[in-house]
């Protein structure tokens, strides 16, 4: 993704006259954009007036601007290309803020083009005016308020360049209405950005690579901790070679799921708060930790002073400001992860890790992911649902998730083997991200199976995009792990707040007399709205509700085989929690391993 698009990037013929709005359209074409997500309004209507004249890209009209940013984000995560959003001023732009923050936290390249009130009215509290560069500054990699039509072409060029290079991220370009109308006489789209202060170090310093090898050779218990940077730089192949030829075990972060095949014997699955016992044990026991494109997030490290206490640390990252941010490191290698791994692999030697791998294999046998299967009754366990998806979904299926328990069960129980098959809001934890992101991924890969693992809370946060899914024929499969709770908060209330379920119950008793009998733990005497399966009627999609374990497989098969948008409402065990769990800010040694 760090490369400029090969096609469609030739400069325009010089001397063409174009309006600001036409320049925007030309820039999108030249940048190789194939799809734009968005929503119109008065301050962007000039761009829309030209938008439908282009046959080079498709416009997808969403039902909410937040949906548009998440779709662009999901599209970017699935394809590696820049996701593009066009919205109007004021509320249009402010509705993109959550999507921007989400893309910023997870380093996802999107460009948001927003209309702005005319230059002469800026600062006057004009109708639908908002200080968009001010509001979006802390949640974007960079942003621009365009001040003249002369600078518009190069700022568009800069925006795409900044979004896709280095540590990728969201860029906002705010264009006043008068500049969309203004005419530039001598227009040509620049070949290069004009960014003298922006430097991306791709190639690592060879001395640091050599020092890293000295530590790797000397280590007895080395461990690779791989993150989203491996996926962003398309380095999964290089990582696989590095790990297998050195025989060093690999644990991945939540953002790194898919960077290393989880069915590989060296895989320890995910680490951190809801990671496996053996991954966290390996972290606490290793004598060398090789962090590759990961940022030592607090959900990974737990109590920072007790993280990897016996380990020297090598940290590889594209972002120099990530180095020694949370944990002091012994060797840093700044550069593009793919470039770094290629350099490392040139000097590759096998390491003597036989004893260490044997130890870890023993831990894997002793402490597998575990849950009570309830095989004797009809209760549906959420982990079982994910395992069934894992079994029945296509090999190249893309799994998206919402945020909360559904997300952690999906991360734990689905076997990720390929990069860009896991799309989920990591850093920001945005409920409502999964479904629109799934639509973006589906648009990027119309032929592949795209599944949104949802919770009954999260799915309602952007459910309006069902109409978008139907209209543009994006047949995403929504599988709702419905427990009638805001489950992850409920889990914290269970464990740390004396079961005071304040503000987390999404159900109500059927009647006053039922209130006494209704249990917080099962579906008896419970009234729940909406019946998600019945959304099939107003929207014209497929829908079904499952309440018994025995019906699940047949319903799941039908859902996955459906050629339309499909909603499977699975009423799961209401009281199930996500384990193992390291309480916030506890050491990775202190795992809660679950209830029998």
């Amino acid at each position, binding site marked *: 993704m760090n490369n400029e698009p090969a096609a469609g990037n030739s400069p325009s013929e010089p001397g063409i006259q174009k309006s600001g709005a036409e320049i925007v359209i030309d820039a999108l074409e030249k940048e190789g954009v194939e799809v734009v997500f968005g929503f119109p309004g008065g301050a962007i209507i000039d761009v829309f007036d030209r938008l439908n004249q282009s046959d080079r890209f498709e416009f997808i009209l969403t039902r909410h601007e937040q949906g548009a940013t998440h779709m662009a984000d999901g599209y970017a995560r699935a394809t590696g290309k820049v996701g593009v959003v066009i919205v109007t001023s004021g509320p249009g732009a402010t509705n993109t803020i959550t999507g921007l923050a989400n893309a910023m936290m997870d380093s996802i390249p999107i460009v948001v083009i927003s209309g702005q009130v005319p230059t002469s009215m800026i600062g006057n509290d004009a109708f639908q005016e908002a200080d968009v560069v*001010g509001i979006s*500054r*802390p949640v974007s*990699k960079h942003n621009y308020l365009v001040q003249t039509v002369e600078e518009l072409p190069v700022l568009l060029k800069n925006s795409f360049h*900044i979004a896709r290079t280095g540590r990728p991220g969201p860029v906002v370009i705010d264009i006043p209405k008068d500049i969309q109308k203004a005419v530039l006489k001598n227009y040509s789209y620049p070949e290069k950005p004009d960014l*003298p*202060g922006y430097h991306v170090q791709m190639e690592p310093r060879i001395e640091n690579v050599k020092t890293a090898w000295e530590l790797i050779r000397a280590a007895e218990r080395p461990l690779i901790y791989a993150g989203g940077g491996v996926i962003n730089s398309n380095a999964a192949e290089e990582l696989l070679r590095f790990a297998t030829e050195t025989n060093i075990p690999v644990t991945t972060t939540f953002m790194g799921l898919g960077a290393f095949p989880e069915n590989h014997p060296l895989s320890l699955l995910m680490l951190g708060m809801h990671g496996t016992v053996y991954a966290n044990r390996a972290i606490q026991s290793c004598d060398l930790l090789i962090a590759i494109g990961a940022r030592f997030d607090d959900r990974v490290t737990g109590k920072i002073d007790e993280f990897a206490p016996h380990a020297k640390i090598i940290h590889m990252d594209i972002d*120099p400001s990530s180095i020694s941010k949370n944990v002091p490191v012994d060797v840093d290698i700044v550069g593009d992860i793919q470039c770094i791994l290629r350099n490392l692999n040139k000097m590759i030697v096998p390491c003597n890790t036989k004893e260490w791998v044997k130890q870890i294999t023993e831990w894997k046998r002793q402490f597998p992911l575990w849950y009570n299967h309830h095989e004797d009754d009809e209760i549906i366990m959420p982990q079982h649902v994910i395992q069934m998806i894992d079994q029945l979904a296509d090999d190249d299926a893309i799994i998206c998730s919402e945020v909360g328990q559904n997300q952690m069960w999906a991360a734990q129980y689905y076997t990720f083997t390929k990069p860009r098959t896991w799309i989920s809001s990591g850093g920001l934890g945005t409920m409502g991200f999964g479904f629109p992101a799934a639509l973006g991924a589906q648009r990027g890969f119309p032929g592949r199976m795209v599944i949104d693992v949802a919770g009954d809370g999260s799915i309602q946060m952007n459910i309006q995009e069902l109409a978008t899914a139907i209209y543009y024929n994006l047949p995403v499969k929504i599988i709702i792990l419905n427990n009638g709770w805001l489950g992850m908060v409920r889990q914290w209330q269970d464990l740390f707040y004396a079961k005071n379920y304040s503000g987390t119950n999404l159900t109500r008793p059927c009647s006053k007399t039922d209130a006494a009998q209704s249990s917080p733990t099962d579906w008896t005497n419970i009234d729940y709205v909406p019946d998600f399966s019945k959304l099939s009627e107003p929207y014209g999609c497929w829908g079904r509700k499952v309440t018994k374990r025995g019906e699940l497989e047949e319903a799941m098969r039908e859902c996955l085989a459906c050629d339309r948008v499909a909603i499977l409402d699975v009423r799961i065990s209401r009281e199930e929690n996500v384990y193992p769990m390291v309480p916030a800010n506890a050491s990775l040694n202190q795992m809660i391993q679950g209830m029998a």
Partner: protein
Amino acid sequence: MMRRHIFYVLVENRSGVLARVAGLFSARGFNIESLTVGETDSPRISRMTIVVPGDDKILDQVRKQLGKLIDVHDVRDFSMETHDIVNRELVLCKVNAEPSQRGDIVEIANIFRARIADVSPQSMIVEATGSENKIAGLLKLLAPYGIIEVARSGRVAMARGNNESIQNARAVA
């Protein structure tokens, strides 16, 4: 370790840059003691000198993040380096001055190589340039006469001798 840091920042001369730079400090609750901005010999580039007291480790992270800003060409923390810097501040001080006191005030100004920028019937404006210690010394001696107002420019700073990284950054600019 807590101490006073002096940041040198070369930035694009463009609207919004100041807010971006200041935002990195304010987001962490740091209060900027002084901040000066001015064009360099290239009209495209401005130079900022920022004085901010705070923890070394946190401000080192701020320095890295300043370097990451798209509009920042170069950033250094002078207080973390070994070599000497020249740092200066301009101060204007309006002080009570009856005609009989003018001679004494001029004498104090001369000792500090300060200038008399204005004389009015009841007051004078003293203009001085110098290091922090010198300015503090001058204000201390003027205080007994009754200081009416003080305007300070904030500090500007420059490393002594040849300075490769800064020259390289300028070459790019």
